[in-house]
């Protein structure tokens, strides 16, 4: 049989399935899985004639090699013009390299005329298609989720305070019930926070620390309100009006290339460690890099009283930001201040003497140390005008601290000075009176070295703890001196602030270990304490009353508006921390297991130093009172409350008695209804008698007070105590004798 011609072969007869196409398939297969990640499209390259292509390729290869190994570079040619088309494709050996190329070289200026645009090939695929919708769509706003009332705890009928107790991995919020077992606000939660928890300054939010950042909690049941993604956050602070949260993490922010849409940071935040958040929305409003080579002092961002401005320290500069203007630098630039060491904002608005209409100014103070041709200076500046209100020049300074009185009426600049030999330290206090004309400065010279300083809240008195440095540095000898200062009041009637000119020490307590001054938030009472620190082993507490009403007094000087008395000295030898409750009724002291393992637990004292409640708990860590916002009562209303204090306290005593135990509660309730019943009976009876008989009831006979009803009778009683008869020589005889 003749060989069959090609024509004879019918397609149908070919067993297609039997033919092995694998070699062809391999050759022409288009890998649908092909990874465009490795490719970039470069636009904006010079259009070069064919002859220059090798040169151009070489230049571009060199340029793009910075990002990684180039597998292939392809410059398409225009067949007609015999030149390149101005774009090219580059294949890298990895997606990382391609990404790097985009990051590095996108927008790169090749020369004056040419700027390269580098894009991922993926993007071209994604955006270049017809399907990609180029029309603008309104972004969908997430539905507004109202939070429950965040200040509900202030509506407690009995005006109780809340506090947080932390023990091991358990954290709980409780109602203070004096001597009784605290009542749960919410069930104690396990691992609520990695470390401690923190309240915002007015108590609205509770913040917890987590690996992923910080979470805020609030409302009646402490539900989670917001999450602030900032991995490994180590510290946080909240602005005075609770608008902003500042977090700090040792781990710089890395913004991933393919960051999810809800990633809080933009690419500009890469490498930053300090982050400012809007607490209500959870949005990151600003991030900062840490200033290089500086010691970190927390808080790193400080706020003006109204949150309108915030500032942070830089090398030889102070950066003030306008929060209402998108955190732009105030005036567009940082404030150059050579050598600035520390600064702080006034805690409240200041009624400067120059202000009209009771306007309040934001004020900050900072200090600079001595330098070659300048003395040490403390400066008070108004923001945003940057007007310098006062400069205090200081010499021979070794350290300065700034202490604002809580109503910003006074700023004390505590200046630790050294003698010329630099061997001993002594302290001067420069007290600036902010509200007076031209901000006068009053100087108080201390003979020894002031360690601690604290203003009386809402007052003009202060306390220092100082030490006289002696040759004997045996740490077991108590050497600290607690000194109480008040403005001199020569005339008892002189109570106007302007007349208070000079602060004088009016009492001294010597031979103390004291390392802490803790004023009651309401003023008047203060606890000068020794807390357990690495240097001190034994804690002690001294309660003082600066307006003691009794006869006794520790005053050395009478011409001050203060009468000091030591009220109590309760024991808690292992206490490491203390905190007043926001109302100034109780002091909590506790021994934290994070500091040492002795007698961990807490005690709550009242202002008389009596132990109201104590609980020793193994592994107890932390006690936090929930702060309260400023009272809304006006001064007049407060005065009225004070005037009727007896009436109020009568009601509170009853409540206390009722809380003491349930039997008492029953009894009180029963009595209350009996009293109510009786009053009701008397009222009804009065009405009935009035109506039926025209008779007016009364409880006690009232006697007429007119003078006719009374007659004053005076009786004089003479009583002869002794009668004595004596014979006296008659005058005549004596005359004769003479």
């Amino acid at each position, binding site marked *: 049989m003749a060989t069959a011609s090609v024509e004879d072969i019918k397609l149908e007869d070919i067993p297609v399935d039997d033919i092995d196409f694998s070699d062809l398939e391999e050759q022409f297969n288009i890998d649908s899985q092909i990874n465009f990640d490795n490719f970039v499209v470069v636009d904006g390259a010079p259009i070069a004639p064919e002859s220059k292509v090798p040169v151009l390729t070489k230049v571009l290869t060199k340029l793009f090699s910075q990002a990684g190994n180039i597998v292939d570079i392809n410059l398409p040619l225009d067949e007609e013009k015999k030149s390149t088309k101005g774009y090219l494709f580059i294949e890298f050996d990895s997606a990382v390299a391609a990404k790097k190329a985009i990051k590095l070289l996108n927008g790169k200026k090749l020369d004056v005329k040419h700027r390269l645009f580098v894009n991922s090939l993926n993007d071209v695929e994604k955006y270049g298609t017809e399907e990609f919708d180029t029309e603008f769509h309104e972004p969908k706003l997430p539905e507004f989720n109202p939070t429950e009332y965040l200040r509900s705890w202030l509506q407690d009928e009995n005006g109780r305070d809340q506090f947080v107790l932390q023990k091991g991995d358990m954290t709980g919020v409780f109602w203070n019930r004096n001597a009784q077992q605290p009542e749960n606000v919410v069930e104690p939660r396990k691992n609520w926070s990695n470390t401690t928890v923190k309240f915002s300054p007015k108590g609205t939010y509770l913040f917890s620390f987590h690996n992923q950042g910080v979470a805020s909690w609030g409302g009646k049941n402490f539900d989670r309100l917001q999450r602030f993604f900032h991995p490994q956050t180590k510290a946080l602070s909240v602005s005075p009006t609770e608008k902003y949260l500042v977090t700090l993490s040792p781990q710089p922010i890395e913004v991933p290339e393919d960051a999810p849409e809800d990633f809080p940071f933009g690419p500009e935040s890469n490498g930053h460690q300090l982050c400012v958040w809007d607490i209500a929305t959870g949005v990151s409003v600003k991030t900062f890099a840490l200033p290089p080579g500086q010691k970190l002092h927390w808080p790193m961002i400080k706020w003006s009283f109204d949150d309108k401005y915030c500032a942070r320290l830089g090398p030889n500069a102070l950066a003030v930001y306008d929060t209402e203007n998108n955190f732009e630098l105030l005036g567009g630039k940082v404030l150059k201040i050579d050598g600035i060491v520390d600064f702080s904002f006034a805690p409240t608005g200041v009624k400067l003497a120059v202000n009209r209409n009771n306007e309040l100014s934001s004020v900050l103070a900072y200090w600079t140390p001595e330098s070659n041709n300048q003395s040490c200076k403390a400066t008070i500046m108004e923001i945003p005008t940057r007007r310098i209100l006062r400069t205090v020049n200081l010499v021979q300074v070794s350290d300065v601290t700034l202490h604002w009185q809580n109503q910003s009426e006074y700023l004390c600049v505590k200046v630790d000075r050294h003698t010329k030999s630099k061997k001993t330290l002594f302290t001067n206090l420069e007290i600036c009176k902010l509200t007076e004309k031209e901000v006068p400065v009053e100087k108080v010279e201390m003979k020894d070295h002031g360690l601690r300083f604290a203003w009386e809240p809402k007052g003009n008195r202060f306390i220092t703890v100082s030490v006289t440095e002696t040759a004997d540095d045996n740490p077991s000898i108590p050497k600290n001196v607690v000194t109480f200062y008040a403005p001199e009041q020569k005339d008892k009637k002189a109570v106007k602030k302007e007349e208070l000119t000079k602060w004088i020490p009016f009492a001294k307590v010597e031979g103390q270990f004291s390392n802490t001054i803790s004023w009651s938030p309401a003023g008047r009472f203060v606890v000068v304490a020794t807390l357990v620190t690495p240097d001190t082993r034994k804690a002690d507490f001294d309660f003082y009353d600066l307006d003691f009403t009794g006869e006794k007094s520790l005053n050395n000087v009478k011409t001050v508006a203060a009468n000091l008395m030591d009220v109590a000295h309760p024991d808690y030898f292992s206490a490491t921390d203390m905190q007043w409750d926001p109302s100034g009724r109780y002091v909590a002291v506790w021994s934290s297991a994070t500091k040492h393992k002795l007698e961990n637990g807490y005690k709550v004292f009242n202002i008389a130093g009596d132990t109201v409640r104590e609980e020793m708990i193994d592994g107890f860590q932390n006690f936090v009172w929930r702060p309260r916002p400023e009272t809304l009562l006006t001064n007049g209303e407060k005065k009225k409350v004070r005037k009727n204090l007896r009436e109020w306290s*009568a009601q509170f005593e009853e409540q206390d008695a009722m809380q003491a135990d349930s039997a008492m509660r029953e009894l009180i309730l029963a009595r209350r209804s009996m*009293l109510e019943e009786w009053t009701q009976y008397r009222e009804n009876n009065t009405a009935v*008698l009035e109506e039926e*008989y025209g008779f007016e009831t009364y409880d006690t006979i009232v006697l007429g007070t007119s003078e006719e009803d009374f007659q004053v009778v005076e009786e004089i009683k003479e009583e002869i105590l002794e009668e004595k008869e004596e014979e006296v020589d008659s005058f005549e005889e004596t005359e004769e004798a003479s």
Partner: protein
Amino acid sequence: MRPIMLKGHERSLTQVKYNREGDLIFSCAKDSVASVWYSMNGERLGTFEGHQGTIWSIDVDQFTEYAVTGSADFSIKLWKVQDGSNVFTWKTKTPVRRVEFSPSGDKILAVLDGVMGYPGSVTVYDLKRDAQTNEIVDIAEEPAYNIMTREGFEIASVAAWSFEDKFIVVGHKDGKVSKYDGSTGEFVDSLELHEQNVSDVQFSPDKTYFITSSRDSNAKLVDVVSFEVLKAYEADCPLNSACITPLKQFVVLGGGQDAKDVTTTSSREGKFEARFYHKIFQDEIGRVKGHFGPLNYVAVSPQGTSYASGGEDGFVRLHHFDKSYFDFKYDVEKSAEAQKHMQQLEIAN
């Protein structure tokens, strides 16, 4: 509280009374002489002499012009307080157990014992006074009316006037208490209040409610108009007397084992103490001891600043209250007062 001992009677006290101003104390005893004392210092002002037997009861009118005494010598005597002279004497058929001026001073009631065939009665006499001087110008010798012991009741042991002479409240030997119209003597109402003899009836300062004491160891507070029991106070011994303190919301109860029973009862003490109860809460809040016989009568000054007790031992003990007495208040009262005060303030604003 240091008591002032009024030593002047030779036998057991039967009644002790303050005048309206609280500056004088009138006392009578089984020794037939009544006495008047200054409440301030316990000095005796004078005596009313003339009775032949035990004086069971004494009273003084609201003007402190006249005093009246009722005696076991079958007579009621009217005295002028100023000089102690006997103004008038009513002869009665039986011993007189209780006398009392009506609040207006125009009537006198007398509780007459039911002995010698007489059924016992509460007898009311009219007096006529000068409108200006309050001097008694005419005395009715014959009773205005007699409230004879009703059927089903035992004889009356005590009686007292309510506000504006409207009612007479009578305590009976069987523990019943009955109410009569003050102007006509008509029966109005009755209550089975106690199980034994009603030993005393004393009114509140405004005479709108009263307290009864009984030998059954109970004292009860009753509203005179509605005749409903408001409160009950239980003591641990027979009671001879009870009174309501003005100014404070207390009641004072007095009594004790009968002298004749002391030796036969197991309790070591005769419970010869004045007991203070809270009028509203009914708790006992304090006791004052001192007498060495039962307390026959307790009385509080109308101003509420002192109280006097007359004892079987023949002494009147007069106590001026301390600061602690005036300060004492239950938390509930304090807070209620405080709330009231706050409300008033709010209204004022």
